[in-house]
C-alpha cells in the first residue's frame, strides 16, 4: 500500500473503529483512535511531502484499483500528489488534527462522543480522497462524502428538528451544485475519455478539444463549486450549517470542506485558462458573494453566523482570485483562511463553551478579562482576517486585491473596487464582533457571569497554535510555491505602478474598519443603534439576508410541494390515472349489470335474443355476400 493510500485510509480506520466499537470501549479509546489516526495521517503526509520536496516535487501517482472498465476506457481509483495537493493534504490533516484535539475538550460529556469522532474521521477520510484524488471521479466521491459528513455533523444533535433540517438543507443545496458538477464531468468523459485531472488539464492545454467547449465545462464544474463553497446562489446552506458543533463549523464549514470548490477550480486550472468566459463568471460570482455576504455579516447578532457569512465572503474572495487567473493566490488565501477562520471559530466555540451555550453577541461583552487566552487568539485571528500586516490574511488578501485590479486575465477596476469595499466591511464586522464580545463593560447577569470560565488546555492550546499560524502563515508564499503547477497571470503593465499604493490602501482599509467598529460600538453601542434606526429598511433587508431563503421557498419549495401534492398526486395519480382505472372498472361493472338485466329469466326473451342473433347473422352475411 502506498503512502497516499495509507494517508487516506487512516481516518477511515478511525471511523470504523470508533463507529463500531467506540460506544463500548470508552472515551480514552475514542480519543486515541479519533485523534491519533488523523495525527498519524498528518505525520505520514508530512513525511511524504518531505520526500517529495527532496525529489523536487514530481507529481506522484498512486493507482489503487480499477473501479470500472469499459473497453479501453476505465475509471481508475488513483491518487495524485503534487505541490497543490501537498498543500491541501497538510492543511486538511494538520488543521483536522488540531480540531480533533480541540474537540476532545469541547465535546466532553456529550452522549454521542464516539459517534462525533467517528463522523469527524469519516470527514477527514473523504476530504483526503477529495484532495488526493487524481481523477474527477475520486474527487467527486470525496466531494459527496464530505457533504455526507457535513450533513451528519450539522445534524449531530438530531433531536432538534431545526438542526436536522439544517443538515438536510446543506445536503440538498450541495446536491444542486453537484448536478452541475456531474454534467461537467460527463462532458469531459464524453470528449476526452478520461476523468484524470492531470490528463484533462493537459488536453485543454494542448489546444481546443473537439466537440467540447471549455467555457461550458468550466461553468458546469463551477456550479458544483458554488454549492460546496457556498457561493451565490447556493450560499444559503452555510449559515444554517452553524447548527452543528462549533469545531465542526471550524473544520468543515470554514477551513476545509467549503474550500473544496476553490481547490477544484485551481486543480482544473487547465480548463479555466482556456475558458475566459467561465473565469469571468467565477470572478463575478465571487465578488458578488464576497460583497453581499459581508453586508449580511455586518448586522448578524449570532457569533457563529457572523463568522459563517464571513466565511462565505472570504470564499468569494478566493473565487475572485480564481476568476482572474491567480490560482495560486486563491490557494494562498485558502491556506491562511484555514488558520484564522479555524481559530476564529474555535475561539467562538470557546466563548460559547464559556457562556454555557450562549451565541447571541448582544448578550455578551467584556469577556476579554474572563477568558484572556481566547480573547488574545481571537484578536490575532480577527486582525488577520481584517488584513492587518503582517498577519497571514494581509498577504493573501492583498494579493487578491492586486490581481483583481491588475491581472491580465480579467482584472478590472470595478472588480477591485468591490473587493476593496468588501475588505473594508470585513474589517468592520470582525472588529465589531471583537468589540461586542470582548470589550466594554460586562452586561451579563451575575449568574451567567459566575459560570464564565476559560476553556481547558486542550482547547486553548489549539487556539494558540492556530493563532500563531494565523500570524506567521503569510510568510510562506504559497503562490510562489505553487507557481510550477499554477502559474500566476501576467500583470497588466499599465497597473504595474499601482502595487505600492494598493498595499497602503489595503492596510488603510483594515484600520478604517477597526476604527469604525471601535467608534460605533464604543460604550453602550448607542451610535450603532442610532444608525440602525436611521436605516431601518436597509437593516431589515440585511438581517433578513436579502430574503433569499424566503425567495427560494416561494419560488421553488412551495411550487414543488404544490406540484407534487396537488398536480401529481391529486390530479395525476388520484384523478387521472386511478380515476381512469376506477372508471373502467365501473364501466365493466355497469356492463355486467346491463348483461344481467338482459338475462331476465323469461324464456321468451331468451328465444327472442336468439332470433335477433339469427337475423343479424343472416342479414349481415347475406347482405355482404
Amino acid at each position, binding site marked *: 500500500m502506498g503512502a497516499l493510500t495509507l494517508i487516506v485510509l487512516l481516518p477511515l480506520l478511525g471511523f470504523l473503529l470508533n463507529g463500531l466499537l467506540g460506544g463500548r470501549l470508552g472515551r480514552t479509546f475514542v480519543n486515541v483512535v479519533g485523534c491519533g489516526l488523523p495525527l498519524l495521517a498528518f505525520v505520514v503526509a508530512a513525511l511524504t511531502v518531505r520526500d517529495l520536496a527532496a525529489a523536487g516535487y514530481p507529481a506522484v501517482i498512486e493507482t489503487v484499483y480499477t473501479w470500472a472498465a469499459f473497453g479501453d476506457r476505465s475509471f481508475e481509483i488513483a491518487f495524485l500528489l503534487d505541490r497543490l495537493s501537498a498543500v491541501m493534504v497538510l492543511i486538511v490533516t494538520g488543521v483536522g488534527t488540531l480540531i480533533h484535539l480541540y474537540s476532545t475538550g469541547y465535546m466532553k460529556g456529550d452522549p454521542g462522543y464516539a459517534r462525533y469522532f467517528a463522523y469527524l474521521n469519516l470527514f477527514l477520510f473523504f476530504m483526503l480522497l477529495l484532495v488526493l484524488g487524481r481523477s474527477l471521479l475520486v474527487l467527486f466521491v470525496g466531494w459527496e462524502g464530505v457533504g455526507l459528513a457535513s450533513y451528519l455533523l450539522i445534524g449531530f444533535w438530531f433531536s432538534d428538528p431545526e438542526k436536522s433540517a439544517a443538515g438536510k438543507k446543506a445536503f440538498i443545496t450541495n446536491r444542486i451544485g453537484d448536478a452541475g458538477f456531474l454534467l461537467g464531468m460527463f462532458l469531459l468523459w464524453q470528449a476526452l475519455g478520461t476523468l484524470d485531472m492531470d490528463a484533462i488539464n493537459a488536453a485543454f492545454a494542448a489546444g481546443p478539444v473537439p466537440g467540447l467547449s471549455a467555457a461550458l465545462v468550466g461553468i458546469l464544474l463551477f456550479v458544483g463549486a458554488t454549492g460546496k463553497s457556498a457561493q451565490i446562489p447556493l450560499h444559503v446552506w452555510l449559515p444554517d450549517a452553524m447548527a452543528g458543533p462549533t469545531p465542526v463549523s471550524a473544520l468543515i464549514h470554514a477551513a476545509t470542506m467549503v474550500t473544496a470548490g476553490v481547490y477544484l477550480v485551481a486543480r482544473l486550472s487547465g480548463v479555466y485558462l482556456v475558458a475566459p468566459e467561465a473565469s469571468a463568471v467565477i470572478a463575478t460570482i465571487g465578488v458578488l458573494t464576497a460583497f453581499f455576504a459581508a453586508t449580511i455579516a455586518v448586522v448578524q447578532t449570532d457569533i457563529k453566523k457572523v463568522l459563517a457569512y464571513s466565511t462565505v465572503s472570504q470564499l468569494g474572495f478566493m473565487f475572485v482570485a480564481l476568476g482572474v487567473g491567480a490560482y495560486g493566490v486563491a490557494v494562498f488565501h485558502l491556506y491562511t483562511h484555514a488558520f484564522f477562520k479555524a481559530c476564529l471559530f474555535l475561539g467562538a466555540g470557546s466563548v460559547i463553551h464559556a457562556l454555557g451555550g450562549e451565541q447571541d453577541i448582544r448578550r455578551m461583552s467584556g469577556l476579554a478579562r474572563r477568558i484572556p487566552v481566547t480573547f488574545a487568539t481571537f484578536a490575532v485571528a480577527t486582525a488577520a482576517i481584517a488584513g492587518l500586516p503582517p498577519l497571514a490574511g494581509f498577504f493573501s488578501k492583498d494579493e487578491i486585491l492586486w490581481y483583481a485590479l491588475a491581472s491580465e486575465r480579467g482584472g478590472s477596476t470595478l472588480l477591485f473596487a468591490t473587493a476593496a469595499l468588501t475588505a473594508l466591511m470585513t474589517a468592520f464586522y470582525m472588529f465589531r464582533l471583537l468589540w461586542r464580545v470582548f470589550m466594554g463593560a460586562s452586561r451579563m447577569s451575575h449568574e451567567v457571569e459566575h459560570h464564565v470560565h476559560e476553556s481547558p488546555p486542550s482547547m486553548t492550546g489549539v487556539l494558540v497554535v492556530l493563532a500563531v499560524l494565523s500570524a506567521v502563515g503569510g510568510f510562506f508564499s504559497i503562490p510562489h510555491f505553487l507557481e510550477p503547477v499554477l502559474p500566476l497571470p501576467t500583470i497588466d503593465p499599465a497597473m504595474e505602478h499601482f502595487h505600492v499604493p494598493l498595499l497602503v490602501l489595503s492596510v488603510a482599509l483594515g484600520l478604517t474598519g477597526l476604527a469604525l467598529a471601535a467608534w460605533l460600538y464604543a460604550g453602550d453601542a448607542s451610535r450603532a443603534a442610532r444608525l440602525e434606526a436611521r436605516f431601518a429598511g436597509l437593516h431589515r433587508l440585511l438581517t433578513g439576508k436579502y430574503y433569499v431563503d424566503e425567495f427560494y421557498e416561494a419560488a421553488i419549495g412551495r411550487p414543488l410541494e404544490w406540484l407534487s401534492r396537488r398536480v401529481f398526486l391529486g390530479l395525476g395519480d388520484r384523478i387521472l390515472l386511478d380515476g381512469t382505472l376506477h372508471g373502467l372498472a365501473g364501466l365493466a361493472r355497469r356492463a355486467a349489470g346491463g348483461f344481467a338485466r338482459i338475462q331476465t329469466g323469461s324464456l321468451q*326473451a331468451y328465444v327472442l335474443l336468439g332470433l*335477433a342473433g339469427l*337475423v343479424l347473422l*343472416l*342479414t349481415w352475411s347475406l347482405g355482404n355476400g
Partner: protein
Amino acid sequence: MIETALTYFFTVAAVLGGMLMLVARHPMRAALALVCSMLSLAGVYAMLGVHVIAVFQVLIYVGAVMIFMVYTIMLLDVRDPSFTRRWSGLLVPGVLGAGALSAVIAWALRDAGDAPASASTEAFGVQSFAVTFLEEYWLYFELSSVLLVAAVIAAIAALRAGGGRDG
C-alpha cells in the same frame, strides 16, 4: 294442374293454420289450429308425391303427438291466467324479428332452383321407401329406437323428478 292448385291451397292452409294457432286464445283452439296446419301439410306432401311422409305426418304428428298435447291441455286448469292473456310482452319485437327472419330466408331461397316440384314420386312410394329405409338407412331405424328408449327413460325420470321432492 289441379295438383298444383291443391298444393298451393294446402300450403296456404298450413300457413293460415299456423297463424291461427298463434292468435287462438285457448290452447285447445291453438292445438286444433295446429292439427289443421299439420293435416294441410300432409296434403302438401301427398301432392308432392311423398306419400310415406304424408302418412307418417298424419300418424305420428296428428295421431300421437297432438293427441298427447290435447290430452295434457284437458288435464289442466283453464282458469290459469295464461289461458286468458295470450301475449307475452315481446309481441312487437317478436313479430318484427320473425318477419325479418322469414323475409331473409325467403330471400335466400329466391333462386333455389326451378326443378319441378315432384320429380320422382317413385322413390317415395311406401314400398320402395320401406325397402330403401331398411336396406340403406337401417342405421337410423336402430338409432331412432335407441333415441326412443332414451326418451322413455328420460320421460320417466322427468316425471319422477317433477313429481318427487320439491322445495
